């Protein structure tokens, strides 16, 4: 892609290819390249070859799982009903997807519009994380075609999982609505965008409620197994808080990690606003994550103190617990503190990666590694289980990239107004185009028009 850009190929960032000439849908899908050029860049990217190998091996295995049954692909057993699909796929991916509601809240609810350049990435990260967590779940369920049963056929309202099912389903719809703004811009359907804008605040508040509850509920699922989860990872009173609070830094740090990868691997897609603000926003996100981590560390300690479990720290399990806490919580906390103080963005990113890994390790520990700690045998995942996990994750990455390449997530969509003020020859080199003052001005007038002054008049009233 970089090569094509150097050759002066225009990039899709507005409805119009040239004055009075719209991009067709096919052109938009092909990123403004001809099919030939598109295929060339597709084959030139070595990462695509890696993906191709993963899919070639993994997709037949996913199909095989539905033909030969779960026992063909997993070592899930009567003692260890949940393996990697849930331990990693569901419990690991959902906390990393809390970014959607957090950035939505920051921008829309607290009115911190300085976070706006990264808001859409947060929302998309949330949506995709949830969607693929559900995909993992579908592979793991014994009868996945019955997934809608808790909604329509039979209700088990006393079950925590019932709450998870309803909330994840509702929240997925909320997130689709939130992300659809970018889609409406891209497809050219301003009415849809206006509609969503009107209910943004409602969606955001619903997002907070649903996220608080189901992030917590995933933790509360383990309170059904008080004797099976190791005491250090278990707390009847705080389990849901541990899961909820750790999901906060998890989601923010996931956005830092993804934004880093996006900037490094698809620089052509990032606009000037993104490039200019990313470092500052990364540090700002890390501040939020540090608070989350500090809170998490505190309630983890309170959890241990509350049930007086200190003696477990002296065991082998306790050492493993301390490894998790040190590399996943304490070390990132120090790294963040040092990096934020000295404005070292690279170090912040490394800390974010550690935090993400720490959260995933915590979920794996709770659901698999220390689960059934009283039993002698540990479950080692089947090699096919590992490959299927990698495959689904690769599909996740592919879809993620597909959307980032196209929808205005990493860049701002230019409206007709704005284009009119920009000479055509400059449009082809958008890096220099978006003179900030100009774009900010037009953007403001655009949003004012779009939101039909709703907030303005509201503020006038108050």
């Amino acid at each position, binding site marked *: 892609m970089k090569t094509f850009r150097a050759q002066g190929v225009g990039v899709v960032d507005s409805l119009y290819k040239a004055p009075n000439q719209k991009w067709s849908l096919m052109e938009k899908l092909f990123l403004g390249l001809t099919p030939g050029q598109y295929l060339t860049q597709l084959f030139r990217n070595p990462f695509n070859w890696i993906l191709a190998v993963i899919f070639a091996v993994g997709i037949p295995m996913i199909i095989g799982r539905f033909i030969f*049954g*779960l026992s063909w692909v997993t070592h*899930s057993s*009567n003692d260890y*009903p949940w393996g990697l699909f849930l331990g990693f796929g569901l419990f690991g991916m959902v906390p990393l997807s809390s970014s959607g509601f957090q950035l939505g*809240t920051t921008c*829309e609810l607290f*009115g*911190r*519009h*300085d976070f706006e350049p990264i808001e859409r990435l947060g929302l998309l990260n949330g949506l995709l994380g949830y969607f693929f967590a559900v995909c993992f779940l579908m592979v793991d*369920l*014994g*009868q996945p075609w*019955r997934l809608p*049963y*808790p909604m329509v*056929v*039979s*209700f*088990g*309202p*006393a*079950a*925590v*999982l*019932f709450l*998870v099912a309803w*909330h994840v389903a509702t929240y997925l719809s909320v997130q689709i609505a939130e992300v659809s703004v970018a889609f409406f811009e891209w497809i050219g359907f301003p009415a849809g965008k206006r509609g969503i804008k009107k209910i943004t*605040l*409602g*969606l955001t*508040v*619903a997002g*907070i*409620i649903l996220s608080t*509850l189901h992030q917590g509920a995933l*933790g509360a*699922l*383990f*309170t*059904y*197994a*008080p*004797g099976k989860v190791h005491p250090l990872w278990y707390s*009847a009173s705080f389990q849901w808080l541990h899961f909820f609070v750790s999901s906060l830094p998890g989601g923010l740090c996931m956005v830092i990690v993804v934004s880093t990868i996006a900037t490094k691997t698809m620089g052509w897609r990032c606009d000037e*606003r993104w490039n*200019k603000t990313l470092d500052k*926003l990364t540090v*700002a*996100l890390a501040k939020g994550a540090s608070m989350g981590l500090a809170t998490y560390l505190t309630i983890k300690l309170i959890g241990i103190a509350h049930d007086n479990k200190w003696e477990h720290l002296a065991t082998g399990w306790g050492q493993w617990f301390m490894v998790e806490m040190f590399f996943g919580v304490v070390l990132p906390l120090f790294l963040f503190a040092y990096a934020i103080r000295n404005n070292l963005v690279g170090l912040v990113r490394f800390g974010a990666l550690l935090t993400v890994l720490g959260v995933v390790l915590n979920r794996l520990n709770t659901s698999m590694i220390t689960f059934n700690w009283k039993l002698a045998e540990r479950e080692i995942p089947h090699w096919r289980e590992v490959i299927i996990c990698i495959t689904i994750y690769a599909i996740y990455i592919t879809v993620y990239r597909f959307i980032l390449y196209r929808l205005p997530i990493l860049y*701002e969509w230019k409206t007709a107004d704005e284009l009119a003020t920009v000479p055509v020859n400059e449009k082809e080199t958008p890096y220099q185009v978006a003179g900030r003052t100009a774009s*900010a001005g037009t953007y*403001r007038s655009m949003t*004012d028009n779009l939101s039909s*002054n709703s*907030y303005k*008049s*509201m503020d006038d009233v*108050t």
Partner: protein
Amino acid sequence: MKRRDFLKGCLACGATASVCGMSKKAWSAGSFEGYPEAMGVLVDLTRCIGCRSCEAACNKEQKLPEPTTSFADQSVFSEKRRPTEYAYTVVNKYDTQKGPVFRKIQCNHCNEPACLTSCFVNAYTKTKEGAVTYNGKICVGCRNCMIACPFNVPGYSYSSAFNALVKKCIFCHETRLKEGNPPACVEVCPQEVLTFGYRKDLIKMAHERIREMPDKYVDHVYGEKEVGGTGWIYLSGVTFDQVGFDTTLGNEPIISNVKEFLGTVPMVLSIWPALFTGFHLLATKNKGHHDDHSNSHQEDSHK
């Protein structure tokens, strides 16, 4: 006008969220002692000789597949087995200071079953006869019940691609218990290890046996109180932890652990909408809500 729109939006979403979450919870009623007419089985471990005829009877009654070795084969005692999709009950052998003790394992048919309370489609039923039954027609296969069961009882047919189900002892509910008959294992037992009757009578009987022969039994009826009480209760001559029982379970039903979380649900649902809408109004007060849009270079980026 616009303000009303926005409040409506909040209300609509808040309402959706609460409707979704409403029915749950509030199950904080006191502990359930079991149905008065519930049946149970008293298992006297001191009488069991490990003949495995109960396993054979169960296999036949529930039409389970033939095992690889016959039920007369004593070599299975070399390992500790658990109920599986192929065997709803198993007998294990434990070497204790009082010699070998055999213990039959099957579903204990709890008064407040963890499997039932963890199931999001309500596939489990605690019948008035005391059995915990399972409806395979609505089971989604999440296997949360297997996570929840404190006795590690439910098995799962992982090998089935199209009809994978939980498999466990259902107290012979369909074929026998409904008519008031004892389950197959009880009927076949040659040593009268198993006594079938009303649970409340069995508890009295168990305590009577302990009183009559305090030297023979440890003074504990396992399952009388454990996890809220179980339909199957046990007497033993050695302490229960020596024969594979989990003695750390406590007397609270498993659902009690979950109630703290369930209690927070209505609070979050009712308080959050107003709280966060309030935050919003405070945060954007005296601030043209959209005026600083894309004005991303403001200095203070403290979160």
